[in-house]
């Protein structure tokens, strides 16, 4: 049997590539920019397995161009760029990387939440620009207390639960909303369940950790932002389109909510002339949810092992 061929759409750490090299000839996309649709089709043409990121659209068209494909491994938890139903219909298993990056993403959610609460990025920029002339001023740069504040978690998957755990260390009053109730998580982390409008009305901090589906598209739009407190802070570590960017811009501009921090935007990257970039009360990070060591290496290794399993016909 000839050696399998694997196409990897972005550079990985050598340790992870070596795992795939044990069972396949590996072609790695060498550029920093992701492959275009045509380049992706071309490289998948003779591939038995592919390792993808969220930038790669894996749809029926691509699968048509990849007749030998028998394994897809995504370096992420979210799979909204992959037509999983279509792949399954064609008997191609799809792997993803749950668990391993939930903790790091929760760390980032807390970093964004605390940074927004205490205005770290804004005040640093002001300081470096020469703003700090008086040592202590009682009302400069006042932020919001995180301890004992009300946190609303929307979507209680693995990342939502990890966020709940961390918030417990700050004695936060934690309320959550999701399609299903989780009495076990309520007991373990001291959470309260709430209907979505109630969560929005109560929360000092709202964190979004839902997958992107047709139901969660623009889950946060004008009406939802209007339900939130004027002092509230919105954090998005899920997917950009969960939030309506035009509505968010107006809400932040007009003080309907106080601040926001987004690790994901719609589109990604955000256009340099997007009005959101003119706001002082917004922090945007470029989708770095799990960009930390050692987790990034562990995620790459898991995706590599998933691909190897798929190529061998074993469960991912």
């Amino acid at each position: 049997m000839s050696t399998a061929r694997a196409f990897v759409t972005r550079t990985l750490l050598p340790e992870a590539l070596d795992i795939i090299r044990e069972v396949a000839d590996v072609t790695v996309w060498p550029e920093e920019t992701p492959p275009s649709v045509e380049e992706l089709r071309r490289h998948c043409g003779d591939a038995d397995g592919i390792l993808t990121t969220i930038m790669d659209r894996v749809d029926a068209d691509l699968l048509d161009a990849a007749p030998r494909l028998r394994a897809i491994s995504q370096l992420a938890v979210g799979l909204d760029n992959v037509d999983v139903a279509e792949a399954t219909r064609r008997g191609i298993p799809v792997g993803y990387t749950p668990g391993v990056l939930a903790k790091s993403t929760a760390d980032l959610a807390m970093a964004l939440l605390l940074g927004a609460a205490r205005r770290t990025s804004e005040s640093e920029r002001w300081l470096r620009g020469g703003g700090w002339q008086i040592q202590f001023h009682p009302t400069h740069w006042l932020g919001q207390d995180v301890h004992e504040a009300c946190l609303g978690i929307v979507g209680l998957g693995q990342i939502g639960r990890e966020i709940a755990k961390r918030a417990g260390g700050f004695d936060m009053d934690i309320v959550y909303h999701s399609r299903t109730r989780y009495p076990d998580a309520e007991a373990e982390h001291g959470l309260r369940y709430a209907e979505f409008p109630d969560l929005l009305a109560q929360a000092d901090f709202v964190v979004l950790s839902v997958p992107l589906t047709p139901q969660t598209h623009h889950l946060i739009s004008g009406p939802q932002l209007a339900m939130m407190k004027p002092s509230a802070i919105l954090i998005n570590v899920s997917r950009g389109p969960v939030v309506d960017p035009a509505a968010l811009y107006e809400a932040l501009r007009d003080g309907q909510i106080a601040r926001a921090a987004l690790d994901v935007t719609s589109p990604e990257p955000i256009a340099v002339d997007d009005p959101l970039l003119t706001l002082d009360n917004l922090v945007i990070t470029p989708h770095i949810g799990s960009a930390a060591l050692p987790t990034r290496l562990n995620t790459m290794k898991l995706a590599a092992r998933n691909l190897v399993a798929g190529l061998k016909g074993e469960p991912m």
Partner: protein
Amino acid sequence: MIATSPNLKAISVVGVGYDHVHVETCRERGIAVGHTPGILSDTTADMTMALLLATARNIVPAYNHVQVSKQWKYYDPNILWGTDVHHATLGIVGMGRIGHAVAKRARAFDMRVLYYKRERRPDWEEELGVEYVTFENLLEVSDFVTLHVPLTEETTHLIGEAELALMKKTAILVNIARGPVVDHYALYDALKQGQIAGAAVDVTEPEPINTDHPLLSLDNVIVAPHLGSATVQTRMKMATMAMENLLAGLKGEQLPYGVLQPNFPR
């Protein structure tokens, strides 16, 4: 200043630290001194975690990349890699109320938490799951070192060249205590030479720090303008306590939160 204020009866500090008040002179003159302990411990611990997480996960460089220099052109999974906070080791130097609150938060991230202080607290070890170590050991093994000591003669330049040399090359230093606890020029050298990976400070020497201070030329340093207690809620509480102290001092009564109680002839 006290010499030129012959009628001064009470000094009410809005804050916990009173190293800027010459307490001996106040004692001699019978001037009451109050401060605002306790209520800013949690807010300061929140800020400690904000700085620790911001440095660990490159929040400020990320914000600059997107919003200041506007360089975000495509999704790149290989930029702005930080350090995992979960399961990392945190070393707390000086564990009073603020250190205790930091330890509690850190444990919720599954951090391994070590501490050093002059008097061991086995009860806190049990309560929080923290481990007592020597100062040197803490510096050698911690991924994050955070300082929560008051400023005294002993703690001035507690962190200097020798201490920075003991730390891991991947370590991050957080200082929310007082600027002079850290030798800033040694810190600059250590960061420049890669002896430690990064630092986040809420306090500097002097304050305010000059914009051409060498530390500000580094991009692996976050500096906050002394915001440890800067929240709406806590400043309100501090103002209220300080006012209660002041009123009591003026009336010659017991200060609710006194460093030196009134010593007026009856």
